[in-house]
């Protein structure tokens, strides 16, 4: 049983104070997909269960007492929302990406932010490589060819291209980028990278300009986050620099690439191929891509394995319990 809080001198154990209120902007699919209930010890406020429109819901006394917000990829935490919920001290997201959170406002208000940390890094890297092999070696295209009964032993289906010896450019060398680079090396690719800043202990050649990186690469793998600087960073010039035989893989966010330009270049044969797990207006995928054999399309699944979801749920619960016990967050988002 819990000791008398006065005598132990520590903060009250979770059970002894009123359950902290957490505003849940969307029921996290990460929990439902693996049949995991939300953790006990917290009061989750669910806008979709209220008859009130969202604005009125936020204004209600109940919700104004929320001390934390739990959100998911694509569900924004805006400056306005933070202003209207002055008791919020923590924003927690189930995603690795942070582009849906107004980080500047959080910083101004001293609101802590925590995300998925490194829970997904290996899985996302695995999918990036899977997409790359698929595009270069035409795995899905081959599967389509066999399934429609076209395989007759006469070899009309064009061969793919070898991975080994290809020059690969990793855009964004965070944990995911590093895991991607490690795998690329095992396949005999040479790795260079572009990042906001050169990384001090990394031996891969650094390019400060992403277009220059593309000029010197056969393959680009987009592993960075989406923010003001990276929005449409992969534009027409970069894609043209990558070239007719060039392949782009995107497991970051759709808007890092100027999608309209990319589609046009793919259709015109100015870009060799693409492996895409993310799109500017998901789940909408540009129709022109559906007719192309040199693209592989993935419905934003990079993080969705049973193993990573399980770890993610543990992390969410762990972060909530830590925060409300005045302990350090497990996966705080640090300012760089």
């Amino acid at each position, binding site marked *: 049983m819990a000791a008398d809080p006065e005598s132990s001198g520590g903060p009250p154990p979770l059970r002894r104070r009123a359950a902290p209120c957490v505003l849940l902007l969307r029921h996290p699919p990460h929990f439902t997909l693996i049949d995991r209930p939300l953790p006990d010890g917290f009061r989750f406020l669910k806008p979709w269960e209220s008859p009130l429109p969202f604005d009125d819901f936020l204004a209600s006394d109940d919700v104004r007492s929320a001390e934390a917000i739990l959100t998911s990829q694509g569900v924004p935490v805006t400056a306005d929302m933070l202003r209207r919920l002055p008791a919020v001290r923590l924003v927690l997201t189930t995603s690795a990406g942070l582009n849906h959170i107004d980080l500047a406002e959080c910083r101004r208000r001293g609101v802590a932010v925590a995300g998925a940390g490194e829970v997904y890094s290996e899985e996302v890297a695995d999918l990036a490589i899977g997409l790359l092999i698929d595009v270069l*070696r035409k*795995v899905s295209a081959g*599967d389509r060819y066999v399934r429609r009964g076209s395989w007759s032993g006469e070899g009309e289906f064009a*061969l793919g291209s*070898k991975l080994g010896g290809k020059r690969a450019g990793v855009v964004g060398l965070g944990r995911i980028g590093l895991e991607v680079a490690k795998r690329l090396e*095992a396949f005999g690719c040479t790795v260079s990278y572009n990042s906001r800043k050169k990384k001090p202990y990394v031996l891969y050649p650094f390019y400060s300009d992403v277009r220059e990186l593309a000029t010197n690469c056969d393959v680009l793998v987009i592993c960075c986050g989406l923010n003001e600087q990276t929005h449409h960073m992969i534009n027409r010039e970069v894609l043209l620099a990558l070239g007719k035989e060039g392949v782009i893989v995107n497991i970051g966010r759709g808007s890092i690439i100027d999608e309209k330009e990319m589609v046009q270049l793919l259709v015109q044969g100015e870009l060799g191929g693409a492996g895409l797990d993310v799109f500017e207006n998901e*789940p909408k*995928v540009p129709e022109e891509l559906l007719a192309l054999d040199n693209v592989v399309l993935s*419905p934003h699944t990079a993080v969705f394995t049973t*193993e990573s979801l399980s770890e993610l749920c543990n992390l969410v619960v762990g972060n909530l319990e830590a925060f409300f016990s005045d302990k350090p967050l497990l996966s705080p988002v640090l300012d760089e």
Partner: protein
Amino acid sequence: MDASSPQNDGVLLLPEVLLLRPSALALPFTAGLGAHFRLLDPLDSPEPARSFLSSRCRAVRALLCLFSPALPVKAETLDLLPSLELVVVSSAGLEHVDLPYCRRRGIAVTNASAAFCEDGADYAVGLLIDVMRRVSHGDRFVRAGSWPVQGELPLGFKLGGKRVGIVGLGSIGSETAKRLASFGCNIAYYSRKERLHVPYTYYANVHDLAANSNILVLCCALTEDTRHIINKDVMSALGNEGIIINVGRGALVDEKELVQRLVRGEIGGAGLDVFEHEPKVPDELFVMDKVVLSPHRAVFTPESLEGVQELIIGNLKAFFSNEPLRSLVQYE
């Protein structure tokens, strides 16, 4: 002047090489080969093959075996070639060559697996990621317009931490193991003999390998011993969640049994580049999302084909110059 080529009336005679090839094959290599060697091709002659060999090939010292030749590289052919010293094989596998016969006669054999092994390994890993992370399934899902309408794909599975059993640790198997290690997989293998200095766990039989693996990757040659090596017992040992990737030969697997288990949910999934009666693929597989089907191309890229040509020419040139062969098969 090339010391190996005899001169005759000032005309440089290229060394003779007997070419054994499949009848239907459009030859990607002959242009390159013709510059260095004089090719004798029984399929190009109106003479019946045996007669061609006995009358024209008695002095032939080298033979090039392209893929699955119409004339097998076995006793009935080799008995007609008394001067033969070298067999150059273009494929990764050696199943159409009678190796014991060659050994008895002191005929050297070279293979081409070094030219193919990286591409073969890349593809094997690609198939595995595809099965585990539903890449082709997802692509199909998006192309069918299902993403907005039907929500999500079923979850995939992480590669890291999975136990991968490699069947056959030759060049393709070794390259596959190296790649999967970078994904955090635990690698074990079965091979005819244990390999020393290899950091992977060895199992002396495939059944035990399967019992201790989540995934089997088939990278071995097809021989009498390995035919249906992945049988009912091995599949049971692998278990209901097990995954099989085959970039070897279709007949390594009891295909009928595999299909039945896939239908009944007694095996987790499969990535198949080869089939017992290709290009015929069992109908049941066409409607399954947990299989990835591939038209026998794991080792083939323009780069590997160029590599094979280079290796063939390299071996033949070395032979005719009395230099060490580049990819000599060591008899066990």
